[in-house]
């Protein structure tokens, strides 16, 4: 069971982020870390490979400045190797461009039975890349997996919905996006950290992937960020003095929200 996990390396959300005023995108020139939402896919992949009794987990990532910090975290968790796409031409790449790059990088991994992604990244949040990758690779796509099982040549997925879950299946290979929080990502052990140091990172640029740099980055972007505005501050809540009928107000409030 060979599994590819697409992982994004993002600026540490614990640090105050900053936007580049010219490009109106997040500054990514500092140290990047593994996006927490991808740690679930990594954990899921490691568990599936374990359950299958073998196989490798390979990471695929696109990041500026040959960044590997986040990859090392996932390698320390137990992934075997990774493909890193880094190229100055990729600055400004939009969701579709990212999917093109990742799809081309995934093709470099031989014998991939399953491709896992998060449902969306914590910094970009378009939530469209997984399906675009599947389309570009001509593979079936299942989204919002809360659990994944492999049965012969089929992947069986419980797909999270607002009311519960759907049971879906697809023939392998397939692209499945994993919902955050559905597994408990393991802590990398110290031995894992030491081992990660020497695990292979296959770094490639657009040329190596056979991608025309003009079709990605700012040049190839089909979208433009026109303005960025601060999110409106949260409005003050309503304070109700309890005169003995407070419970009625709570019920009315919840009823209005249609949650009861």
């Amino acid at each position, binding site marked *: 069971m060979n599994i590819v996990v697409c992982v994004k390396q993002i600026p540490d959300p614990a640090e105050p982020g900053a936007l580049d005023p010219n490009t109106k995108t997040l500054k990514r020139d500092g140290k990047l870390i593994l996006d927490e939402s991808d740690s679930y896919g990594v954990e899921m992949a490691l568990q599936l490979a374990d359950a299958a009794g073998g196989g490798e987990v390979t990471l695929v990532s696109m990041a500026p400045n040959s960044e590997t910090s986040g990859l090392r975290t996932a390698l320390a968790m137990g992934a075997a190797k990774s493909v890193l796409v880094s190229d100055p031409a990729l600055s400004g790449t939009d969701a579709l461009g990212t999917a093109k790059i990742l799809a081309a990088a995934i093709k470099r991994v031989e014998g991939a039975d399953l491709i896992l992604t998060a449902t969306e990244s914590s910094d970009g949040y378009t939530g469209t890349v997984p399906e675009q990758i599947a389309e570009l690779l001509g593979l079936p796509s299942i989204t919002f997996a809360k659990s994944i099982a492999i049965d012969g040549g089929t992947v069986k997925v419980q797909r999270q919905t607002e009311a519960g879950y759907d049971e879906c299946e697809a023939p392998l290979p397939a692209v499945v996006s994993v919902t955050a929080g559905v597994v408990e990502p393991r802590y*990398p*052990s110290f031995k894992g*950290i030491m081992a990660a*140091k020497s695990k292979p990172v296959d770094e490639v640029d657009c040329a190596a992937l056979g991608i025309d740099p003009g079709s990605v980055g700012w040049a190839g972007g089909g979208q433009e960020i026109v303005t960025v505005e601060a999110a409106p501050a949260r409005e003050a809540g309503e304070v109700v003095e309890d005169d003995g009928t407070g419970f009625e107000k709570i019920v009315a409030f919840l009823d209005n929200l249609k949650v009861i």
Partner: protein
Amino acid sequence: MLGATPEAYDPDLMIVELNDEQLALRTVVHDFCEAEIAPHAEAWDRDHTFPADTVRAMGELGLFGIPFPEAYGGGGADLTTLCVALEELAKYDQSMAMTVEAGVGLGANPIFHFGTEEQRQQWLPDLCAGRTLGGFGLTEPDAGSDAGGTRTRAVLDEAAGEWVINGEKAFITNSGTELTSIVTITAVTGEAGGGRPEISAIVVPAGTPGFDVARPYRKMGWHASDTHGLAFTDCRVPEANLLGARGKGFAQFLAILDEGRVAIAAVALGVIECCLAECQRYANERMAFGRPIGANQAVAFKVADMAVMAECARGLVYGAARLRDAGRPFKKEAAIAKLYATEAAVTATREATQVFGGYGYIDETLVSRQYRDAKILEIGEGTSEIQRLVISRELGLPVT
């Protein structure tokens, strides 16, 4: 002329820079502490709970094996790396930091340094993995700083091929947990000549008949760390459990004490950093007389002093660890680091408690727990007085 030797100031050894793996380890330990220790530490303290599952989880992280070779299941790293982990743990819970510190320094380290290949194979892999814990019993009810005054006796029953141990040990860390596999003890095994006792080290497996673990002490702090008095009554262990050369037990222990002192100093460093961070926050938040308490120099300067103590302790801890890892002498530096960092930790926790006012005196406040926990740092693994004695001797002073 100043007598300082040039190599004492080797600039290469004075720069402390953590490598990528050490930084990654620090992040993992930090995340682990935030999720697995911080939410429970107050309850463990309140209920005097030794959290065996959390200790096993620290074992899975590899914390108990950091400085030992991979051949025994260790991490193949060094004292500096161990200090990185201990410093981070101590910011959250000294008891958990000490469980690792004692497990590594007192449990596994003697086996690694003085054990035969067979003894290493027998005990180290489980100790390194944190599946089991070890302790070291040197202190006795009537012999602490003066550990050469050991009264516990072990007599070799040659016919049976067994040591027969009688005596008592006091204050032994990690000696009575459900994970404890061994306690290595020092015992008098004969006379060394000139009326001096011959002291050897012997490994006593947990559960050996005649090895009794007393009820845990009621302690001022370190409530989640396991400490017991031990009694040995005709306790028999195989002759092959002698650790290192006969008659070398005490000398051996002294030889590995220096590493333990640096490790304790790393714990103290984490404690100071915890006080600094907590007080930085609180001095900005807490209002009195219509302004944050940190607007008063009397409060702000306490916090500034904590930053000074943290910087000094950091330099001393990693400086000493760096010397050790480079294979250089570090006895004096280890004693200086232990002395300074632990005394600074006691000062920092006392002052942090003052900054927190009444809340600082309430058990569930983090700095309050750190205050109660910190005092023993000046006592265990060589009191402050003993550190000053070591430093004085290293300076060539004629102290006795």
